[in-house]
């Protein structure tokens, strides 16, 4: 496919004039600028050498092997012919368990190739950490299991940050890696010896280094039991060469070769009737009850039951966790955008809340009573004192509550919620007006204007407000986007940095989100094919920007917004100590849009709210029509976070839209 670099439509851009190649333009510019003789001589030599090739600049293009091999017929393993390898046995188990996707970098070849050949959608990217993030993002927005993979040693260790992030998010992520052959253990024979399981001992739900080849199916069962039951979390398997390459003539050579209906149950813990009665009693006594609905509600697909229970008894709902949309921000009982109402709550019901806050981390008053519904008794009472703890899976508990609760209206409470939502929106309007002023005064775009511009484009324009899946990452900028970005349906918003708060994987998360939407997986089905949006900062861009190549080669249309304020978000810390500030700063006005162009995507560079809105429109049109991704580089300044430009950085209340810790 022939693709040219994107137009920016930006007058500040210094592109080659039409019909002149970039090389020719640069050559003429160097000669015209009176470059010093030595440098000119070098430049002339270099340019002459290139001219001798007799070619203009080579255009970025997608090799035909990519679309062809991605869509060629699957060739799953079979016991017929030569039997199945351990890798094929494992890949078959993954397919039968509905593994929805694989995101990887090459390495662990036997396993990843077997998974791809089995017909499971597979994607190869530029770095293992970004691909691990892609798998995490995919899962958090679909609720389906995905895998990530890296090679033994450095490929695996390059995933550590994102495995930790997935663990903090309680993402059911299948982490796969190769390992050196067992016969070479402890010898440093060849390369890349690394004991993996001890490293991930603190960042996974379960893991195993497979050492007995004929147990590979058995351990696939272990893995999927861990992934699909109880509180979710990463599962890590590593495959020494003997296991992946072992060959089995028939199933009798494998241990525990049963299907999933035998090695796993769909049964879940149900609440005791007397506990539901106790909960209903407490809810009835409360004047201003609130459900805090975490990601467990999403993973158990309990959003309909949540809505039923909330509406039956007029219970407010605030979301928490690393994904949003399991209770619509547009609902009259929505409290995620009502921070002023939080301290009025007299009863909080935590459900699906895996990362429990400590007292004071959620903005409740000290007299609030608390109920927590959670699948495992061991965690009830951790961090937050409870008045009632209920062991139950989330969906069945909400269904039981919806059934048991009497119909009730709480007019005063719903009026207070509505007033609190309005107050929040009024404050957002006020901040936006300040942002416009700061932008006009400085000639640079304020983050409030970026966030508001996005919100207006996504929810108040021609695009249906439920359509666009959004990944909000970064730190400084996301304090702003969290105030303006909304979720109206399950799986609409991903809170990139959450609890572990890794900076940088946002291009990876966005690629995973894009893959989920392109394939129409789970709650993304109604929006199949739509472009996705991602937001990150310039610090984050430094980690995973190369995945613009991955987005481009797979034609996963994404619009990435980079909030470019020339510094790490915590630059203020360096300003208070001698000789420290430089460590927190970047060069000013770096052109991340040019990097995107160099990776086959479009780039836009904006410095004003008007330019940003126009860039969004252009980028969306190209993404929708041609599947082309764009990076919009929003030039800002670090001082916008200070009191010099009120309100500085808003610190947002939890639970609700502002949350990033719990």
């Amino acid at each position, binding site marked *: 496919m022939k693709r040219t670099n994107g137009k920016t439509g930006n007058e500040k851009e210094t592109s080659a004039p039409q019909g002149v190649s970039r090389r020719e333009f640069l050559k003429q510019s160097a000669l015209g600028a009176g470059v010093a003789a030595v440098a000119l001589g070098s430049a002339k030599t270099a340019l002459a050498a290139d001219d001798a090739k007799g070619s203009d600049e080579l255009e970025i293009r997608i090799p035909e092997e990519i679309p062809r091999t991605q869509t060629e017929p699957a060739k799953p393993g079979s016991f017929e012919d030569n039997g199945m390898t351990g890798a094929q046995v494992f890949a078959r188990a993954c397919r039968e368990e509905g593994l929805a996707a694989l995101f990887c970098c090459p390495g662990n070849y036997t396993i990843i190739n077997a998974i791809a050949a089995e017909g499971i959608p597979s994607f190869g990217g530029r770095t293992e950490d970004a691909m691990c993030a892609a798998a995490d993002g995919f899962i958090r927005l679909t609720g389906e299991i995905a895998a990530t993979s890296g090679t033994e040693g450095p490929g695996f260790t390059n995933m550590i940050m994102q495995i930790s992030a997935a663990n903090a998010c309680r993402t059911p992520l299948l982490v796969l890696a190769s390992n050196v052959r067992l016969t070479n253990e402890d010898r440093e024979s060849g390369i890349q010896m690394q004991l993996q399981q001890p490293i991930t001992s603190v960042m996974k739900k379960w893991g195993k280094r497979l050492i007995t080849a004929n147990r590979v199916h058995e351990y696939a069962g272990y893995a999927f039991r861990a992934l699909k039951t109880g509180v979710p979390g990463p599962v890590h398997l590593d495959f020494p060469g003997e296991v992946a390459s072992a060959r089995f003539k028939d199933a009798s050579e494998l241990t525990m070769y049963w299907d999933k209906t035998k090695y796993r149950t769909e049964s879940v813990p149900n609440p005791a009737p007397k506990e539901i009665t106790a909960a209903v009693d407490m809810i009835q006594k409360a*004047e*201003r009850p609130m459900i805090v609905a975490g990601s467990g509600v999403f993973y158990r697909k309990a959003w309909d039951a949540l809505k039923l229970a909330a509406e039956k008894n007029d219970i407010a709902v605030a979301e928490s966790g690393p994904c949003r949309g399991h209770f619509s921000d547009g609902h009259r009982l929505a409290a995620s955008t009502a921070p002023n109402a939080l*301290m*009025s709550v*007299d009863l909080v019901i935590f459900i699906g809340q895996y990362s429990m806050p400590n*007292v*004071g981390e959620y*903005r409740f*008053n*000290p*007299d609030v009573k608390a109920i927590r519904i959670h699948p495992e008794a061991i965690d009830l009472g951790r961090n*937050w*004192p409870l008045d009632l703890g209920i062991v139950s899976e989330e969906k069945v508990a909400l269904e039981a509550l919806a059934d048991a609760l009497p119909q009730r209206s709480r007019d*005063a409470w719903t009026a*207070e919620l509505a007033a609190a939502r309005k107050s929040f929106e009024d404050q957002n309007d006020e901040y936006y007006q300040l942002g416009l002023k700061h932008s006009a005064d400085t000639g640079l775009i304020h983050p409030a204007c970026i966030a508001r511009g996005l919100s207006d484009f996504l929810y108040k324009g021609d695009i249906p407000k439920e359509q666009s899946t959004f990944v909000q990452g970064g*730190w400084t900028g996301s304090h702003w986007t969290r105030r303006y970005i909304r979720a109206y349906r399950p799986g609409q918003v991903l809170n990139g940095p959450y609890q572990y*708060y890794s900076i940088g994987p946002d291009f990876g998360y966005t690629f995973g989100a894009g893959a989920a939407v392109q394939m129409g997986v789970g709650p993304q089905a109604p929006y199949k094919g739509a472009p996705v949006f991602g937001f990150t900062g310039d610090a984050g861009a430094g980690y995973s920007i190369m995945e613009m190549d991955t987005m481009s080669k797979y034609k996963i249309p994404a619009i990435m917004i980079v909030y470019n304020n020339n510094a790490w978000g*915590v630059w*203020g*810390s360096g300003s208070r100590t001698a000789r420290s500030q430089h460590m927190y700063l970047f060069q000013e006005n770096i052109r991340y849009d040019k990097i995107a162009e160099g990776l086959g995507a479009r780039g836009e560079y904006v410095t004003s709210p008007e330019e940003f809105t126009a860039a969004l429109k252009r980028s969306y049109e190209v993404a929708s029509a041609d599947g082309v991704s764009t990076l919009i580089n929003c030039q800002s300044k670090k001082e916008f976070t200070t*009191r010099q430009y*009120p*309100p*500085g*950085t*808003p*610190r947002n*209340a939890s639970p609700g839209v502002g949350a990033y810790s719990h």
Partner: protein
Amino acid sequence: MDKDPAEGGREHELATKASKIVSDRLKAYADRGIFRSYNAESSGNGKATFKFVWLNDAAMRLVFDEKQKSLTFKDLLPNIPARSSMDKELRAFVAARSSEALPEHRRSDAKRAEVKCVNRGGNVSIVLKVKKGEFAYGVQKAVNLINEIMLGFLVDGPYYEYMIENFDIGEE
């Protein structure tokens, strides 16, 4: 005319009851896990001091003065220069907690409790004076007021640097 001894006895009895009410109410927060490392001590001159760790892991000191009928969160907020903009905004915030604009469950009824800020050398104490002997009400309102200051006023306003510098919280 000499004071009626019975009157003094009734006053002492009321004061003792008041101390018990205050102590019991505060201990209930500790028993529920809201306050940590809770310790109560009586100085014997009609004052009792309650120490505990609470929001932002801050060590707090609440002094109950039976004679004054006051609950004082002593030196709650350090390093706020008197008459600075932060000092003024804090006073306005505290005063607004008694506003009719707030819902009743969030409001501190000025007929039942009077609240003020006291700034000595840049250290701000929050003082609640109980009226009509409603000590249980006073404790609840004092504790909730501190909650609103620490989680609302300081977080919502331009005071994050202040929190980093005075309460040792992280940049993030």
